[in-house]
């Protein structure tokens, strides 16, 4: 099993930390992982993205031009990465701020209104975990117990009291995600 994922959105949306928590959970479940961020000037206020690979085998290139899954949190990233999803692959997007919808018919497209739902439940700061929950519903690559360990390892000790909220957000995401039919 190898899953090649791109997570993309604005800086500040928790793109990199979502990737880190997923990757660390993979490590705890004894998978091979790589987490390759876009780094540089584009991170300051602009778009941010991270390539996460989780595999049972040694990982080759940490830099990819096509992905099994794209998790998309803004329009620029949708424009950039929809075409990079492998045929038959998965595209998950949060419709918040999306005006031009995805159009491909050869991939599976899911929508998750994570930003809105997280705001309603007072979990805006961890809306990225709602998105992660949606992804894990469709691709249960790591088991909940290892997600818990991944959260423990990724978050500094002073934030460990927030782990139950994070897990709640993941569960909300699992309920929230829905398939989109491209007409």
């Amino acid at each position, binding site marked *: 099993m190898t899953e090649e994922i791109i997570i993309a959105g604005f800086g500040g949306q928790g793109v990199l930390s979502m990737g*880190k928590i997923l*990757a*660390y959970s993979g*490590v705890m479940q004894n*998978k*091979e*992982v*790589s*987490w*390759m*961020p876009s*780094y*540089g*000037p584009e991170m300051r206020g602009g778009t941010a993205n991270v390539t996460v690979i989780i595999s049972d085998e040694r*990982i*080759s*290139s*940490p*830099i*990819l*031009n096509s992905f099994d899954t794209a998790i998309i949190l803004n329009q620029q990233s949708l424009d950039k990465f929809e075409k990079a999803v492998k045929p038959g692959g998965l595209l998950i997007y949060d419709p918040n701020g999306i005006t031009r919808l995805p159009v491909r018919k050869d991939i599976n497209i899911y929508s998750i209104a994570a930003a809105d739902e997280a705001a309603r439940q007072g979990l805006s700061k961890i809306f990225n975990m709602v998105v992660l929950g949606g992804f894990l519903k469709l691709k249960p690559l790591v088991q909940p117990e290892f997600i818990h360990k991944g959260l423990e*390892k*990724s978050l500094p000790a002073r934030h460990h009291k927030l782990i139950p909220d994070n897990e709640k957000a993941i569960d909300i995401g699992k309920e929230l995600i829905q398939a989109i039919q491209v007409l």
Partner: protein
Amino acid sequence: MGELRLMKGNEAVAEAAIRAGCDGYFGYPITPQSEVMEYLMAEKPHDRTGMVVLQAESETASINMLYGAAGTGKMVMTSSSSPGISLMQEGISYMAGAELPAVIVNVVRGGPGLGTIQPSQADYFQAVKGGGHGDYKMIVLAPASVQEMCDHTKLGFDLAFKYRTPVMILSDGAIGQMMEKVVLFDPIPRRTDEDLIKQNPWAATGKPKDREHIIITSLDLDPAGQERVNLKLQAKYRKMEENEVLYETLNCEDAEYVFVAFGLSARICQKSMDLARAKGIKIGLFRPITLFPFPVKPMNELGKKVKGMLVVEMNAGQMIEDVKLSVGCSIKIEHFGRFGGIIPTPDEVVKALETQIIGG
């Protein structure tokens, strides 16, 4: 098994230095390697092991602090990225001349000049052929993963003391910035002063009454003396060539063609190899791990078995010169590269193989 962590390459270097028993780190921040010192500062290794971490006023100061500390037999390290490493070249040449052990980490970014902060491999010549003056060599290690960033740091210290030589870890911005799973080796205690003196009789550790002064220098104004110094250095480099070559091969047994690549490029080529093999192309991968000493003999042997080689580097063609010197001109050897911080994609490497080597 050692402790399991998800770490950036730069963080792995820093943690490995603490665990290897490093006595001191001197450095100056520069992207994309600033996490080395950031991690060390946050980790407060002085509390853990007594290791000193100092932000110098410049890269020139860092390398000269390294010279001074290494002269006392201490286990010391610095790190920087390309423009900062250029500033260190004078000091590196002096350290090679004075036979001082140290680990120098270059997390390479695109050049020339200030260039860019994105990853590159354009400092191969500088590292391998001697960026400073004089006939010197450094052992140059080329990690291709975060695990190797950790392992090569420890290996670097071992080799530095075994040969009394500066050792360079030639990494790049991607390996430095990305996170992967790392198994950390168990901490090794820092050497006591007694052990240090016993193991390094050459070091300037204070003069007892019963022996002469120890002088750490790279200067000998008598040309006959300086030639002796050079002969000694060259003999040492031949020993490194004999004993320290490291490389990795993948799928070379039945290969008609091979990619030759180091560091991050080798990771990309591994993916390209999988893509090309799925198309029925019999291709392998040869990855030099030590860039000096270069794996001349195994490259030469491989050159007798395959039809062509594509050397993939994030530069305009540097290691390809050593590949050609190792293999000779009997087969087709071409270069494919992207420059200035652009990372080649696995697909374009396959295309280059098809057009430059197989179809070319």
